């Protein structure tokens, strides 16, 4: 129950701030390469640095460590790199990261609503076909 309430509230704040700031987590790198504009890139770095500082502080306060993370084997590393590359590449072509697309859809951009439809159809496609295909092809 906490998960649902907390993510709903945090999501609402992030959605509001994301709409006001035009924040995008792939747009920063794209803008920097294309026109040397660092507005969005600074937001990306701010997010990373804040989380990097806040995680140890949180575990200090809670007296419990983050993780441990599972020891990533070679297959996981390769899949994660490939997945990350695909996320970056197709998000750039789609003109925004998933967060930006949610915000644009909420602003009334109908192609972003189509993006979200594809997004959720894609989730079902992944779990019904792609995941089992990947696990069958790989050792």
């Amino acid at each position, binding site marked *: 129950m906490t998960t649902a309430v907390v993510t709903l509230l945090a999501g609402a704040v992030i959605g509001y701030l994301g709409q006001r700031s035009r924040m995008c987590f792939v747009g920063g790198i794209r803008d920097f390469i294309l026109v040397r504009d660092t*507005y969005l890139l600074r*937001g990306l770095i701010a997010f990373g640095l804040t989380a990097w500082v806040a995680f140890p502080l949180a575990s200090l306060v809670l007296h419990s460590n*983050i993780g441990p993370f599972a020891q990533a084997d070679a297959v996981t590393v390769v899949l994660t790199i490939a997945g990350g590359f695909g996320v970056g590449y197709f998000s750039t*072509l789609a003109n925004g*990261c998933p967060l930006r697309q949610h915000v644009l859809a909420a602003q009334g951009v109908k192609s972003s609503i189509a993006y979200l439809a*594809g997004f959720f159809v894609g*989730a079902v496609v992944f779990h019904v076909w792609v995941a089992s295909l990947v696990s069958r092809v790989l050792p």
Partner: protein
Amino acid sequence: MTTKTISDGIRITAVQMGIAAGLLAVVAGTFFEVRPPEAYGICMACHGRDLLNWTLNIVFHTHLTVASASAVFPALTTLGVIFGAVIGAKTNGEFRWYSPESFFKEFVYGALVMNFALLAGGCSIRLLLRSAAGDFAGVVGFGGMVAGVIAGTIWLRWRAVR
């Protein structure tokens, strides 16, 4: 005279948004136990998948994958973000219906991004969040994402100048 322009609205910089979102992601993931998996405070792909699969599991009695954090009640980040963004757009006069002619292309991009995100174990935001939490797989995934953005940008520029 009160003509309303876009610049009249509340302005928030990307840096302010990044700091607030970073704090919220960590606080939700640690203090409010949005885990396991670790560093799960915010993810547009995984949380949306959880909400969808949880609903499908309830309605159609399927057994689609749902992260343990969302087993009892699903993460509602997707709905929260849309709600917050609608409020932000409506209260600042930025809401308007707009239809670019690329519905099918965007639909396909959406499906592809979701598939690659679930393969990597996070959207662009969560890959960065995992990196910040010290997850090695998160770091290489974020590196892959940066490489993908660079490749995509070079492709867009090449296509534009051709």
